[in-house]
């Protein structure tokens, strides 16, 4: 390591040394620390969002599949109603408290 070439290489490496992550690094660290203090959920959300989004998508697809499977038994539903899991509803039924609360009425009466 004493050859002139080695000294030049050492110098070259020293001058290539980065001394900063760029402006605002301390602010970014403090925000991360604040998120950690806010709780585990807030801390993982920015980094784990993609994984959580995939899980949510899988659950959504499963629910849509379940709803569409239910449509086969009840063919009066449109596809959109089936996908969203909407129950058939008419204006008369909305303004008919007996129909709306029929299940509750059945349990209380």
């Amino acid at each position, binding site marked *: 390591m004493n050859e002139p070439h080695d000294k*030049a*290489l050492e110098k070259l490496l020293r*001058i*290539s040394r980065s001394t900063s*992550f760029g402006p605002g690094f*301390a602010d970014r660290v403090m925000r991360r*620390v604040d998120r950690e203090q806010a709780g585990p959920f807030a801390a993982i959300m920015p980094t784990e969002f993609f994984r959580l989004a995939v899980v949510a998508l899988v659950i959504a697809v499963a629910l849509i599949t379940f709803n569409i499977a239910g449509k086969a038994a009840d063919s009066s539903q449109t596809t959109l109603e089936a996908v969203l899991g909407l129950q058939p509803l008419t204006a008369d039924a909305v303004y008919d408290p007996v129909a709306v609360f029929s299940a509750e009425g059945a349990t209380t009466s």
Partner: protein
Amino acid sequence: MTPPASVRRTREDDLRLVRQAHAGDESAFREIVETYEGAVAATVIGMLGPGGTADDVGQEVFVRLWKSLHKFRGEAALKTYLTRIAINLSLNELKRRKRFIDRFMSRDRDEGQAPLIEPAADGVAAVDRRDTRRVVQAAIQQLKAEHRAVVVLRMLEGHDTNAAAEILGVRPGTVMSRLSRAMQALKPLLADQLESPDE
């Protein structure tokens, strides 16, 4: 604001800041971040190259410190403590990258004959030769991870052989042999810069 180089921090100064930060003083923790950003940046960017990933790992280094403030007793200098975290997180990131590359990009690579210099996506020749720093960083990125770590600690960070060995958890002789091999590998990669160092 990073303090001027003339301001020498003692271990007692660091311990006082750590205790204040542990007691909830955010300004004390910010002072630690600003003081040691340079050392952590030199380590992480030296290991991973510049970019968003290095920034994320750099942030994670300080978050790990924040989480372990209660454990810090001052046996080691705070800079050494942070450098150890930075090296470990950088090595983890390099392993993650290697797993990704092995899985998706080079299934037929012979694991038993890993070269000293790993092929880079864009070689040193492709980098603008006028930008010495970029050329040197690109050359360092082509070293194997364990050789890169030694170059970063010894040449960029200025740790002595024993300190580098302690940080890496290897024997001093291992540090010396890895450094020698790494420097030999760097010479041909940086031949142009070595022949015209003023450029």
